[in-house]
């Protein structure tokens, strides 16, 4: 703990952060310990996954989609909640675990204000009106449609990575929540916090220009997956991944 300097008056109401001291004990964070990573490779994976997901969503919606520049970054855990607009932003989040030869977590995020636009495209109004509200402001039909979109996006995203890397990646059934971004990302941090101080985040955004619909996809590989993602050679000739 940092000692207060003598003679400096204590500020009333000042909040004092408890310092943890220099990190000791068991070494953490594969992301810090390994050699400098080639982020170009992760950018390429992020783009490939996003492009396939955008193709899939475009086919569902029957509209062309644009892909925003995908990025890949190593973020300190406490910064992860800033990656999609901050912890207070209310979003529709679809969360999936990734199993197979490279574990991790996928998060598909739409702003809450985007929901009417998205649902209007995928749920016939008559069906939506007939179903009951589930407490999150969504009817059963709407909930089902959103989970299916999450499923399709995740499968398309992971198919692209599987194809490029020659490994199997399998998504779980999606979970759905309409709530604050901070709340829907806690589980990502919790999974990583026991073994790492940072997260590799592969991010991308798809946009439907006519309606303004925007959806973000975040892939957080588990540290155990980094060798697979970062080390496996990208298969020659795999310039454009196959569609779903």
């Amino acid at each position, binding site marked *: *703990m940092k000692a207060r300097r003598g003679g400096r008056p204590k500020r*009333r*109401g*000042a*909040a*004092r*952060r*408890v310092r*943890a*001291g*220099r*990190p*000791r*004990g*068991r070494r*953490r964070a594969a992301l810090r310990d390994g050699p400098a990573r080639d982020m170009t490779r992760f950018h390429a994976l992020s783009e490939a996954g996003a492009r396939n997901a955008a193709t899939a969503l475009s086919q569902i919606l029957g509209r062309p989609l644009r892909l925003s520049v995908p990025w890949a970054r190593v973020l300190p*855990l*406490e*910064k*992860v*909640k800033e990656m999609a607009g*901050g*912890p*207070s932003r*209310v979003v529709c989040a679809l*969360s999936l*675990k990734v199993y197979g030869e490279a574990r991790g977590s996928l998060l598909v995020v739409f702003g809450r204000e985007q929901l009417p636009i998205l649902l209007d495209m995928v749920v016939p109004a008559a069906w939506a009106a007939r179903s009951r509200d589930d*407490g*999150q*402001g969504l009817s059963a039909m709407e909930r089902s449609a959103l989970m299916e979109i999450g499923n399709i996006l995740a499968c398309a995203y992971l198919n692209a990575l599987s194809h490029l890397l020659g490994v199997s990646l399998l998504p*779980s*059934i999606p*979970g*759905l*929540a*309409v*709530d*604050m*971004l*901070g*709340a*829907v*990302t*806690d*589980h990502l*941090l*919790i999974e990583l*916090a*026991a*073994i790492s*101080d940072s997260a590799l985040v592969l991010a991308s955004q798809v946009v439907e220009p006519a309606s303004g619909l925007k959806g973000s996809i975040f892939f957080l590989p588990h540290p155990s997956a980094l060798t697979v993602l970062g080390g496996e050679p990208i298969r020659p000739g795999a310039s454009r991944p196959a569609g779903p």
Partner: protein
Amino acid sequence: MTRHRSLSAGELRVAEAPARLSIHGLGSCVAVFIYDPAKRVGGMAHILLPGPPRDSTDHVGRYATTAVAAMVDETIRLGAKPAALLAKVTGGSRMFAYDAGKERPTVGDKNVEAVLRALREAGIEIIATDVGGDHGRTVVADLQDGSLTIMTVRGGSKVV
């Protein structure tokens, strides 16, 4: 002037009145607020896990066991009396039902249990809890009066 500090995941802060400590978008993490009403000093921690990995001594704010112990020490340094400390606990939601129907304790449940146990072992009286559920919370602790305001996207706000 009331100072307002927002805690990120794994962070711990202590303060004295007038001050507010807050956490935005609390999901399966747990917020624990301890407070000495006579001295009007207290602290809050944004907890991710029940306990640290073996041999790890850093990031005390992340773990229920180390965070509660550190907050007690720090609030005492600010003038709190150990016997006067009171605690309020919130969070520990299950935001996603991947395997709805299975009655296995979630990570949120485990965090809550670990925090309550750590507080009991430290001899701190728990005077309010608002835990579990499937919704996120934004919480604001006011060092002026020891109140904890909890806000959700669906249900407005309440003060415990």
